[in-house]
């Protein structure tokens, strides 16, 4: 391949630095004592501890799943640290109290927790290792009755909402990693948008794993009450480390009658080095429930990092006329592996789902799309459209597609389109002959390939996503 492609796909990871900060860390290993300790550190009410213990006991009976098209050495769950927090984090009154070292870390990542985001109209919750270190714009949101805070604060201040909705979309017993998360999750983000309120700004969480040997198990719960709407962004980075780090998060979205939730992710966890050493194992359970009529949940993800990505942001289409969407760009390079896709479960009448998946494989990366469209017997008039396209860069990478379709109602309409293409030297040469450098040419070609997904991202994220792929903003709008 041309040197331009190689230079592009072999770029250094820019976020691989480590922040030197004192942490409050529990001993490695997992047992009921650790869970009680985490719960006590977080000053949780009884129902939370009970829920955690129930999940833990269930987890003990479960086996780590291995059906994904990914390979990795066995994880020793007893060598992991399940709670690590920057020591200076106490309940904060304002961002001025945040450890300056932490603020510097976020600034290095390009995320200012202070005014910049105010100007950009984005409210940010920053999660450092296991705990939330700061949530911005809270007052402005509070005036509208919108609750946006760390999960820990929600448990303290709004236990009734947490108790009502926690585990209603991803139960504590859902799967091995979700059960583990339920047992040990330390923090995360919480958002509640009350009836009829359209959230006027993007809500954003930024996840950062810093400590070594630490698992990150955050939990996000977003509820849009009747007629409400909210758009939520999630970004992630981690330092470069030689050992693998486990990230087993859970995200639950709930949309009641006529509500809309849009959830966008730009995932840029450390992917490991060229030999496949180090990097994040990103084993995440993300699911939304369109509980009410005419509700809509939309997932957009740009997956560029992690050694292994294993996740399926899904939608349960329970309310009549509800809509589920999944737009995904997954890029693998070096020795990265990704097995990602979605599940659309049609339960209500006239429910509609759209899946657009773009997989890009470079280096020795291995990319799999795995998707399930299930139409249950009562889902009269259900519709699904699926499109999955793969692009190969070089000749050592792989692209796989595993679509599953289960239809139990004969009024359903399903469409599936798939394509595989290879980025060609002829395309690169054509661009170069017009005066465009190889690097810009690759960006342009990849950007064109991802266009349908990028246009679904909120503006701020579209920029970040394109930069991640070495693409200028113009690429998507030109």
């Amino acid at each position: 391949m041309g040197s331009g492609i190689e230079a592009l796909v072999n770029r250094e990871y820019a976020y691989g630095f480590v922040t030197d900060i004192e942490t409050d860390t529990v001993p490695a290993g997992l047992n009921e004592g650790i869970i009680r300790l985490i719960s006590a550190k977080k000053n949780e009410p009884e129902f939370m501890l009970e829920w955690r213990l129930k999940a833990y006991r269930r987890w003990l009976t479960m086996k780590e799943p291995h059906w994904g098209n990914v390979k990795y050495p066995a994880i020793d769950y007893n060598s992991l640290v399940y709670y690590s927090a920057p020591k200076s984090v106490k309940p904060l009154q304002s961002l001025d109290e945040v450890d300056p070292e932490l603020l510097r870390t976020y600034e290095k990542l390009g995320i200012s927790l202070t005014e910049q985001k105010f100007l950009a109209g984005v409210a940010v919750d920053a999660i450092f290792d296991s705990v939330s270190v700061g949530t911005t714009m809270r007052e402005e949101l509070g005036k509208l009755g919108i609750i946006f805070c760390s999960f820990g604060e929600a448990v303290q201040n709004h236990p009734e909402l947490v108790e009502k909705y926690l585990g209603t979309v991803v139960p504590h017993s859902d799967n091995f990693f979700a059960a583990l998360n339920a047992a040990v999750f330390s923090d995360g983000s919480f958002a509640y948008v009350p009836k009829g309120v359209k959230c006027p700004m993007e809500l954003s969480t930024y996840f950062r794993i810093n400590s070594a040997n630490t698992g990150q198990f955050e939990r996000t719960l977003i509820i849009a009450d009747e007629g409400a709407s909210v758009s939520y962004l999630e970004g992630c980075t981690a330092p470069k480390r030689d050992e693998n780090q486990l990230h087993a998060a859970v995200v639950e979205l709930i949309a009641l009658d006529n509500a809309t939730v849009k959830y966008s992710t730009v995932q840029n966890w450390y992917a490991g080095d060229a030999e496949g050493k180090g990097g994040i194992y990103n084993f995440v359970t993300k699911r939304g429930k369109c509980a009410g009529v005419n509700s809509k949940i939309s997932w957009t993800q740009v997956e560029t990092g992690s050694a292994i990505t294993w996740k399926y942001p899904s939608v349960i289409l329970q309310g009549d006329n509800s809509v589920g969407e999944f737009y995904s760009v997954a890029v693998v390079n070096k020795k990265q592996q990704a097995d990602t896709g979605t599940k659309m479960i049609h339960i209500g009448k006239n429910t509609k789902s759209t899946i657009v998946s773009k997989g890009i494989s470079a280096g020795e990366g291995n990319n799999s799309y795995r998707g399930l469209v299930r139409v249950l017997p009562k889902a009269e008039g259900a519709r699904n459209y699926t499109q999955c396209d793969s692009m190969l860069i070089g000749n050592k990478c792989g692209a796989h597609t595993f679509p599953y379709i289960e239809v139990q109602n004969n009024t359903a309409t399903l469409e599936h389109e798939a394509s595989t293409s290879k980025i060609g030297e002829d395309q690169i040469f054509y661009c170069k002959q017009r005066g465009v450098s190889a690097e810009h040419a690759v960006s342009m070609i990849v950007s064109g390939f991802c266009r349908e997904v990028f246009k679904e991202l909120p503006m701020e994220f579209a920029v970040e996503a394109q930069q991640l792929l070495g693409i200028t903003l113009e690429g998507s709008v030109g």
Partner: protein
Amino acid sequence: MGPNGSGKSTLAQVLAGNPSYQVTQGTVTYDGQNLLELDPEVRAQNGIFLAFQYPVEIPGVSNAYFLRSAYNEIRKAKGMEEVDPLEFLDLVEEKLKLVDMDESMLSRSVNQGFSGGEKKRNEIFQMAVLAPRLAILDETDSGLDIDALRIVAQGVNTLRSPENATIVVTHYQRLLNYIVPDFVHVLSNGRIVKSGGKELALELEEKGYDWLQNVDAGAGAAA
């Protein structure tokens, strides 16, 4: 001109710097520089343009974005300011008329879903916008119906000036009814076996390439 396999397209690709072709001997001097030492994009920035025989498709990338990127790269190389999308639109409007294309083509993906004729017209359109000093048209006439041929030829003729040069690669005399050449060179087996004025093309049309292959065989034996 020259028969199939005589090296016409190879010459075009080598001048443009296609990495699939390796130059084993000889030099190419362009504007006092050794052209073979320059990367393809630098050649393009220095005014070399190749109208491809088989224009490449780039799904999802609009013609407007593609061509504006090229235009700006060339301007940057000359130390000029880049143009924004609106200025660019003004600039290309009249060039579109030249090849009888509609503005809506600007928002379509590069060459995707274009007919053979549209692809060739798009090449000439790009050439009109980028205004090269040396344009190489690699069998731009192949696969064109007579109307498209006329449009392409008109485009080329309009752009013709004492400031630039055009190498037209073809094996039919047909195109040369519309684009009247100053010189005709005939390639055979990778060599120029005969050069002349526009009447050489007519002579070839009449006698066929066999006539020259005999000349070539003689020349080869002599060498």
